[in-house]
């Protein structure tokens, strides 16, 4: 057998193996914006992936790629995944929106699920969690805990999801502590431990004794621990290794039930493009254990707030609420509609500073 035929045979064998595995099991791909060991956002998505593997066993094969930049590279990664025979691909960051739609248009038989986006197609669905519900609980605890009345907030990108979180936290901090002030630093990254640590340190130096974060690493927790007497909250993941101090609670994203549900839909051929936006009630957002560093009465209030949100008695955006410029947004008793929330590009009254333009 000469070299050429040997190679051809090898290539043929690989091709056959690929085809065979495609028939036997459902292949599910995941594209991650950070490393799976980030301890936050990507970590929880990967936990969801592992839950899918465990639930379906040999019936489902999962593949993933971590630290994929949001842009031209994402499009290539997605195309290669689709070419490799994936039946369903989860793209787990906002910036994958256009690449997901572009690739989906080329592979009508592959299903795509894009996290936190707003564009859909016949084979592209979107999903996200109502993180702002968790932010409300966080804001309540933070407002009670702060002694300097300065709460630091490490924001990632000025997109509606992040602005919503700032507003939700501020509204509920202010409710329990009228003197509270928010200092926001825009990090322009989802995951960059060095930048996040710098931001946390800068906020602490400016007098913040509670740090909230919308970035994915545990670096702010470490910075707070070093500074001492600074409270933090786990973001996206429990970050329990920093409990009971500085981490006093957390917002946990729980993707596993959703992922299992969608994979099942693909197996049953019942998958349809839709938009899912679940919160505490549906179990997609969880509040991590509130530690003993929080006074018992505050803890009880926070849990009551969580309960009220979960069973639908209370909406975190309930009027009267004004926008930052003083114009009326929600009248007494009125609650925000999802459309406004999804496109939120303004601060509520009382927040200082501007959303970067």
């Amino acid at each position: 057998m000469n070299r050429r035929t040997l190679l051809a045979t090898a290539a043929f064998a690989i091709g056959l193996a690929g085809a065979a595995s495609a028939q036997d099991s459902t292949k599910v791909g995941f594209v991650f914006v950070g490393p799976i060991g980030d301890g936050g956002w990507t970590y929880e998505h990967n936990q969801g992936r592992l839950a899918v593997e465990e639930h379906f066993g040999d019936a489902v094969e999962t593949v993933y790629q971590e630290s994929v930049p949001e842009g031209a590279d994402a499009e290539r990664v997605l195309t290669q995944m689709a070419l490799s025979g994936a039946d369903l691909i989860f793209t787990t960051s906002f910036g994958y929106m256009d690449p997901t739609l572009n690739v989906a248009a080329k592979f009508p038989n592959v299903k795509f699920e894009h996290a936190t986006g707003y564009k859909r197609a016949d084979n592209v669905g979107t999903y996200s969690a109502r993180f702002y519900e968790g932010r409300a609980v966080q804001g309540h605890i933070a407002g009670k805990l702060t002694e300097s009345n300065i709460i630091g907030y490490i924001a990632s990108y000025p997109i509606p999801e992040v602005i919503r979180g700032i507003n939700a936290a501020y509204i509920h901090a202010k409710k329990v502590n009228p003197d509270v002030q928010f200092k926001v630093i825009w990090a322009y990254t989802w995951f960059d431990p060095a930048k996040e640590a710098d931001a946390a340190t800068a906020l602490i130096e400016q007098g913040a004794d509670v740090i909230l974060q919308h970035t994915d690493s545990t670096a702010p927790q470490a910075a707070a621990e070093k500074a001492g007497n600074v409270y933090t909250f786990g973001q996206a993941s429990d970050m329990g290794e920093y409990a009971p101090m500085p981490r006093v609670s957390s917002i946990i994203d729980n993707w596993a039930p959703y992922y299992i549900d969608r994979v099942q839909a693909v197996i049953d051929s019942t998958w349809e493009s839709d938009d899912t936006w679940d919160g505490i009630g549906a179990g997609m957002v969880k509040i991590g254990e509130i530690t003993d560093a929080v006074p018992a009465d505050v803890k009880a209030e926070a849990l009551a707030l969580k309960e009220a949100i979960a069973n639908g008695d209370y909406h975190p955006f309930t009027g009267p609420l004004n926008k930052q410029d003083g114009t009326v947004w929600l009248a007494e008793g009125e609650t925000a509609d999802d459309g406004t929330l999804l496109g939120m590009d303004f601060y509520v009254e009382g927040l200082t500073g501007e959303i970067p333009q």
Partner: protein
Amino acid sequence: MIRLEKRPAPSRAWGVAAPLLAVTLTMAAGAGLFALLGTDPLAAIRTIFWDPLFNEQFASYSRPQLLVKAGPLILIAIGLSLGFRAGVWNIGAEGQYIMGAVAGAGVALAFYPLEAWFIFPLMVIAGGLGGWAWAMIPAILKTRFRTNEILVSLLLVYVAEQVLASMSLGLMRNPEGGGFPGSRNLQQYPAAANPERIAGTGMHWGVVTALIAVIATYVLLHRHMLGFQIRLAGQSPRAARFAGVDPNRLVVICLGTSGALAGLAGLFEVAGPAGQVSIDFNVGYGFTAIIVAFLGRLHPVGILLAGLLMALTYIGGELAQFMLGLPAAAIQAFQGMLLFFLLGVDVLSNFRIRLGRREVA
């Protein structure tokens, strides 16, 4: 006893053999790394180096992608190599790349939605000028005030990133984008788009320009007085001065050319594969191009090959990640090994290895 003995002149044979040896050593060490991670090393090496080119499922897609990925790397590295040869160290190509993209996209967005033939050529000019102007800052500071161009050009990258963020959030933000950062997608604006010239080849104007730059630089270095001056200034600055080479002029030319080429690379990327000005538009081509320039021995043809090889490790590395579950960090370590071994075996072209006892002089 092993001893290194300096060669009277660099060995030509090793100059060619060293990169090949480096690639071989990288494969061997990489195989060891992958084996330790519990992956079949042969499968990993095959996935990285073979599958992107010849796998039935992928190759028709990943081969053209090789050009898409290598194009900007080559274009930037070619510009940098001129400066590096002359001892002018432009480390800020990433910033010039960003500014070229911003300037070029700015022209397109200013004309939107007009469809006219002159828009794309204007964008190309603006892109080149944007990168050139950004590189002129370290050039003028160096020639006027003797500042260090390494520091100035590098730090300007971070300034450029802030400009990029500001543009994506403000001036260039897509008014129909629902408040989300990022400009209109130029791929959907035919007069400004930079698509594949021939379907299925990945050959967009950036790749074409990179190839032209390779040829032009080859001619410049080997057939032109300026090329001679560049080489001379790098090898012996004193001799160059005696020969009447104006060092300030060389600084301006080298930084300007590399800046303009990096700016062009940015423009072709933003109008083509990336499509829009966004906060995360730059992904490190400007820095990776430094590796490509040295991997290619600062030689135009070498850079062409090095750019393709680098692109191959990127694309193959992505495949290896999701086909074999290798972590992204392992792929980066693998790419790092390539540079490490290349610089390591470089010693062989300048030195001879002597085994045995030192002879009595």
